[in-house]
C-alpha cells in the first residue's frame, strides 16, 4: 500500500510537471504567433531599439516601472509619453537632478540630443503596445 502510493506520488510529479510544461510551451507558441498585432513590432525602428539600449545602459528600471514592472520609487514610464509628451521628457532628463532638499533625486545621465530622441522614441513605441488598457489612468 505505502509502496504503491509512493510510486504514484512520484508519477504525479513527473507526469504532472511534464504535462503542464508542454502546455506552457504550447501557450507560448500561440502567444508568439499573434503577438505582432499587439506589439506593433513593425514600428521598432533602429532608433527605438537604440532607445531600449539607453534605457538599459542607465538602469532606468532601477527606480521606475515600465508596464508595471521594475522599481516602485519613481513614476510609471510605460505611459509617460501620453502623460507628458516628448519635449517635457527630454527637458526633464536634461535638468536632473533637481537638488530639492529631501526630495527623491534622479541622476544626471549626460545623454546626447540623439540619445534623448532615441529614449523618447522607445517610450513612445512602448506606450502604443496593446497591453489590455493598463494602467487604469494616466497617472500610471
Amino acid at each position, binding site marked *: 500500500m505505502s509502496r504503491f502510493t*509512493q510510486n504514484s506520488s512520484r508519477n504525479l510529479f513527473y507526469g504532472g510537471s511534464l504535462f503542464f510544461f508542454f502546455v506552457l510551451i504550447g501557450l507560448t507558441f500561440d502567444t508568439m504567433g499573434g503577438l505582432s498585432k499587439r506589439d506593433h513590432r513593425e514600428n521598432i525602428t533602429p532608433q527605438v531599439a537604440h532607445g531600449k539600449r539607453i534605457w538599459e545602459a542607465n538602469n532606468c*528600471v532601477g527606480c521606475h516601472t*515600465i508596464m508595471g514592472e521594475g522599481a*516602485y520609487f519613481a513614476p510609471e514610464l510605460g505611459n509617460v509619453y501620453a502623460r507628458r509628451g516628448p519635449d517635457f521628457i527630454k527637458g526633464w532628463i536634461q535638468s536632473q537632478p533637481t537638488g530639492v532638499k529631501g526630495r527623491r533625486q534622479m541622476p544626471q545621465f549626460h545623454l546626447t540630443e540623439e540619445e534623448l530622441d532615441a529614449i523618447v522614441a522607445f517610450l513612445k513605441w512602448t506606450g502604443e503596445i496593446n497591453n489590455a488598457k493598463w494602467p487604469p*489612468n494616466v497617472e500610471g
Partner: protein
Amino acid sequence: MNYSSQSVAKLYFIAAIGLFVGQILFGLILGTQYVIGDFLFPAIPFNVARMVHSNLLIVWLLFGFMGSAYFLVPEEAERELYSPLLAKILFWVFLVAGALTIVGYLSVPYATLTKITGDDLLPTMGREFLEQPTITKIGIVIVALGFLFNIGMTILKGRKTSISLVLLTGLVGLAVFFLFSFYNPENLVLDKYFWWWVVHLWVEGVWELILGAILAFILIKLTGVDREVIDKWLYVIIAMSLITGLIGTGHHFYWIGTPEYWQIWGSVFSALEPIPFFMMAVFAFNMVNKRRREHPNEVATLWALGTSIMSFLGAGVWGFLHTLAPVNYYTHGTQITAAHGHMAFYGAYVMIVLSMISYAMPLLRGKAICNGRKSQTLEKWAFWLMTISMVFITLFLTGAGILQVWLQRIAETPMSFMETQDQIAIFYWLRLISGLFFLVGLVVYIKSFFVKNDEFVPT
C-alpha cells in the same frame, strides 16, 4: 557530520551570512531614501542601492543552496563528495566574481559599467534582477555547471534518494532557466515574456523543489520519521508546485502586451499556487507531531516550522491577494508587490537556508549534535526578531500599497505618483523602523555563533 567532505559547506554558509548582512544594510539605505529622498545622493543613487540589495539577496541564497547541497548530498548518497577541491575552487571563483560585480555597481556609473564590460557585444544588462555584467552571468553559468557536475557525480556514485534527486532536479532547473537571462531581444514585450522564465520559474517553480528537498531532509533528521512517509509528501508537494506554477507564470502576462487569454490562465492556475505552500505547512507540523525522537536542536525545528508558516503567508496568502487579474489591474507594480516580494523571499528562501544552517552549522563546527542552551536561546531571539520585523515590514508596505492604489488609481481625481508618495510617507517611516529591528535580529543571529563555553549537555 558523517563525511569529512561535507565541511566545504561551512565556507558557503559563512559567505551567505556575510552577504546577508550587506543586503540588509543596503535595504536600510533604500528604506531611508524612500523618506529622505536625497540621502547619500549622488554617491549612491537609489537604483544602485537597489541592485546591490537584490543581487546580494540572490547571491547569498545561491551560496546557501550550494552549501546546503554540499552538506546534504554526501549524507544522502552515503559517500564523500566527488571533488571537495572543485567545491572550494568554485567557492572562491563565485565569491570573487560576486564581490567584483558589487564593487563595479558602487564605483562607476552603471552606463560606464555596461561599456567597460562590453555589454554591447551581447546585451543582457539593465533589467531588474539581471543587472549583472554579461561576463558575470557567464561566470555564474560556469560555476553552476561545475557545481552540478560535482553534486551529480556524487549522487551517481552513491545511494540515490528521493531527496537528493529532487534537490538535483531543482538545481538543474535553476541553471537551465537562468540561461534565459542571455536572451534580450529589441522587442520589450518578448524581453519581458522570457524575463519571467528566469524570475517566476525560479521562485514559483524550480526553487520550490530545492525548498521542499531541504525541508524534507531537515525533517528526517530532526524527527526521525520514516523516509517513506516523507518522500511521499515531498513528491506530492513539488508536483503541486509545478502543476500550478508553470501555467501560473501567466499572472505576469496580464499587462505587458501578451494576449488577454492569459488573464484567465494566469488567474486560475496562480490562484492554486498557495496549495503546495499550504501542504508544506501541514507536512512540517505533522512530521514534528509524529516525531520519534526528541532532537535537542530545538532552534532548528523552530526555523523549519517557521519556514513552512511564513512561506505560506508570504507566497501563498500575500501572493493570492493580488494574483487575480481584476485585482492585479489595480495593484500591479505598487507597494503591494513589494510587500509580497519581501515576505515571500524571506519566508520561503531566507528561512529555509537559515534552517539548514541552524541544523548543519553546529555539526560543521565539530559539536556532537547541536549548540548549547545559551546560543540556542540567542538564535531563537534572532528568529523572532527577524520574523516579526518582516511581518511588520509587510504590513506597513501593504498599508502603503492600499492607499497608493486608492489615491493614484481609483479615486475620482487621481493623484500623481509623487503626490501619492508624499501622502503615504508615514508608512515608509514605519517600514524603516521595522527594518532597524530586523537588523537588530540579524546582529543577535550573528552573536549566537560566538557564544563561548556553551556545549550541549544531554539531560
